[in-house]
């Protein structure tokens, strides 16, 4: 699998995701500077975490307008898979690659720590190594991960199976007070990650790339990258 990780001014988790990809593929992904409108053909485009343009104005808004994003949109439309993590998710949402928006965390504070995620579907490039209903533990680290979409969009997402992950209690509970307690940012219906309609673009707030080694946060995120390799090689 050939992957390209886009780097914007202020990106800061590009190294983490590159390391995770290298760990499963044995190959360093191509790092693409935002100013370059064009880049090599790849099997996967990654929009990494960070604070592109300082997260000023709205997270992801300025990056979404950078020249390289026009190219990303073009390739995404052609079906090239895009993995958009955290700030990448915010960029993707601003660019219209995935539905919804990410707002300030409900308690207005940055939140960092492990969360539990329920896998909603194994029917995607990104989640094929997981089972639907499975619970995994990965970290989050963000100030604006509060997913919001209007009622119609939400219904469409749910009906078409475009929800990828939800925050849940360790036992998988998403609803009720336990589910609420497990929700780190106030996201509507505990949504942590979503797909576009064709499920070739996935945006998620948590950081699977920071859960790929036993001594450093566990390995629950590794299967995501392994699944991609399997699907794209």
């Amino acid at each position, binding site marked *: 699998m050939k992957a390209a990780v886009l780097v914007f001014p202020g990106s800061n988790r590009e190294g983490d995701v590159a390391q995770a990809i290298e760990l499963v593929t044995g190959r360093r992904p191509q790092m693409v500077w935002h100013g370059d409108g064009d880049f090599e053909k790849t099997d996967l485009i990654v929009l990494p975490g960070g604070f592109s343009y300082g*997260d000023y104005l709205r997270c992801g808004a300025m990056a979404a307008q950078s020249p390289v994003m026009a190219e990303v949109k073009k390739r995404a439309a052609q079906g090239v898979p895009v993995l958009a993590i955290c700030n990448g998710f915010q960029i993707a949402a601003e660019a219209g690659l995935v539905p919804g928006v990410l707002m300030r965390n409900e308690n207005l504070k940055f939140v960092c720590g492990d969360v539990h995620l329920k896998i909603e579907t194994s029917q995607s490039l990104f989640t094929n190594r997981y089972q639907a209903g499975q619970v995994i533990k990965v970290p989050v680290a963000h100030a604006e991960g509060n997913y919001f979409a209007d009622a119609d969009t939400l219904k469409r997402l749910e009906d078409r199976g475009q929800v990828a992950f939800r925050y849940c209690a360790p036992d998988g509970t998403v609803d009720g007070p336990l589910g609420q307690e497990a929700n780190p940012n106030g996201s509507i219906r505990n949504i942590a990650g979503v797909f576009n309609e064709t499920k070739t673009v996935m945006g998620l707030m948590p950081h699977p790339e920071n859960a790929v*080694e036993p001594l450093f946060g566990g390995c629950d995120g590794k299967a995501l990258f392994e699944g991609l390799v399997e699907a794209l090689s």
Partner: protein
Amino acid sequence: MTIAAEKNPPVKLPNEPQITPQVVAEHGLAPDEYERLLKIMGREPTMVELGIFSAMWSEHCSYKSSKVWLKKLPTRAPWVIQGPGENAGVIDIGDGQAAIFKMESHNHPSYIEPYQGAATGVGGILRDVFTMGARPIANINALRFGDPAHPKTRHLVSGVVAGIGGYGNCMGIPTVGGETNFHAAYNGNILVNAMTVGVAASDRIFYAAAAGVGNPLVYVGSRTGRDGIHGATMASTEFNEDSEEKRPTVQVGDPFVEKLLLEACLELMATDAIVAIQDMGAAGLTSSSFEMAAKGGLGVVVELDKVPMRETGMNPYELMLSESQERMLIVLKPGREELARRIFEKWELDFAVIGHLTDTERMVLTWHGDVVANIPIPPLVTEAPVYERPWTLTELPPVLDAGKVPAPGSSMADWNASLIKLMSCPDLASKAWIWRQYDHLIMGNTSIRPQEGDAALVRVPKAPTGTSHKGLAITSDCTPRYVQAHPETGGRQAVAEAWRNITATGALPLAVTDNMNFGNPQKPEIMGQFAGAIMGMAEACTALEFPVVSGNVSLYNETEGRPILPTPTIGAVGVIEDITHAVGSRLTQGGLAIILIGETEGWLGQSLYLRELHGREEGAPPPVDLAVERRNGNFVRRQIWAGRVDACHDLSDGGLLVALTEMCLAGGTGVTIRQPAGTGIPSHAFFYGEDQARYLIASGSGDDILEAARRAGVPAVLLGYSGGASLTVEGLVSLPLAEIRQAHEGWLPAYMDTVE
């Protein structure tokens, strides 16, 4: 440009005020200091020159009150590459790699504007570290706030924590640890001490000393505005009632620009273009250009009109004294300007050649062609005031007889309540509310997270030649109430505890950075606290082979004459060759033997038990026997290396029972222990005493460790075993962990959520 210096007195600025005694005083210069200035200059200075002297001779930049004492700290060891005197200290960590670190305070600005004050504190210390060529890999911070009941405290906690997180998170550097205390002595003067640790190739370290006459002097980063003019002078004077009203312009940080600056500097550092580099910190352009020239034994010409400016109408005085953030000064090799310009412009940063080096040993500033300042450099450094201020040592208070301190009560309910009270007191309550706002996981190298061990443990990025998975253990420590009671003991204890914290992870303690936070040094008892703390620290650092490689001094931490508790914060770094051998303090499984290492006398003087349960802050602090520290610590580390240890925790605030409870909560496993027979110590002294040089170890059967301890002559005793979901001390305490957890983890969020 050649300057016929003496024949060419600088021109004055339009509307330049007369230099009156009042103007001199406003610049923080004492009359005799001004006399000294006149002698050096041989004429009356211009305002710009006065401003430069004022900044360079401020306490913050000149260390005039502390210098004689700082010299007493040991700074050398075979692994020290660079001790104090540069932007940060540098130590060798093997495989051709070096760790570069320093701690710095931003106390006064954080009190005035907590978010920006703390944020720019983090920004400043990050620059000190990456200016030397290191990529920062971890931040920690030591915070002291006033009484939680004080009306300002909550607002300060909230702003400081958000500011530290806001800056560090955006930079993408994990904030992996720190400490937070509360005490009424900090009501009007909080402490915000931030430390950064970075890693570089040991043969690619960058220094500040300028070299090469004619070489270009380059300004990069943000533009200069009117931020924090006289910040350095402010940091050196005591607050008084109306300084809150004066509200000097505080600096606003831009972590986004700093992130670009970091990447751009590292990119330039990978070329061979740089001769010297220095961040613009306190006293901005003044101290950076001055220090670079002074260290290189050269002169410098700065064309101030070339400095990138953010505002219109700025004058040379403002440009020299501005403390705008996110700026660097670089001396380039000749002809490398375009290479450097391309890199900084790619990162969308300002870049300007603003001057060059000369052989005159003078600092010459020009403004649209006119000379506006012309100062001889060496005398400003060599003739800088140095004070041996009078000092009186604090006498050791009488030792408190533990037998005369009341027990929590006679019933188990009383004991249970005492443990709950301690675990939920502000100093011991969980600080998760704080560190969850810090990205402590970015970079994917955090192996021991906050609350999981005595020190944070971070994997070192692999060296090109290295094979191992090295880790750096990082901690910060100080017990101000001990320092207040007896500065020498407190200084010794702060170093010993830092050393112990690193040891408890299995890492080898290597070196120290310090942040000396004290009151007004012109008071002999405060100067005595400083002197005493230094003596204690020096002794401990020597005995533990734990040299000081960098540090910072913050004096005049007083409000209306009331000083803070003397707080010599110790930041420390250790290395472990193979990170898979490290241990944390979490008790994660049942059936493990719980072993106490070290001698217990039951020392209750200055203990948290005494303060929190009996409202008394008295007695002598626990003595620190450095030989015993060393012996016990080395023993513990060997046991960890031998793979015999599952979890390890040093004993400090709150004593044995508090440490044990922390292990249980962190790992989610209970214990059952008892006080060994024949100690002859009252139970409350045994369990809550704060005797030093002790550790708790959780280990398989424990037999091998007990046997090894016996052979090594290290006191070790089996207390009980892990298991279950409760904490039980036979005959004294029985509490479900869930109940303790609620109290322990509930205090800070509840406090922060309250409004008066």
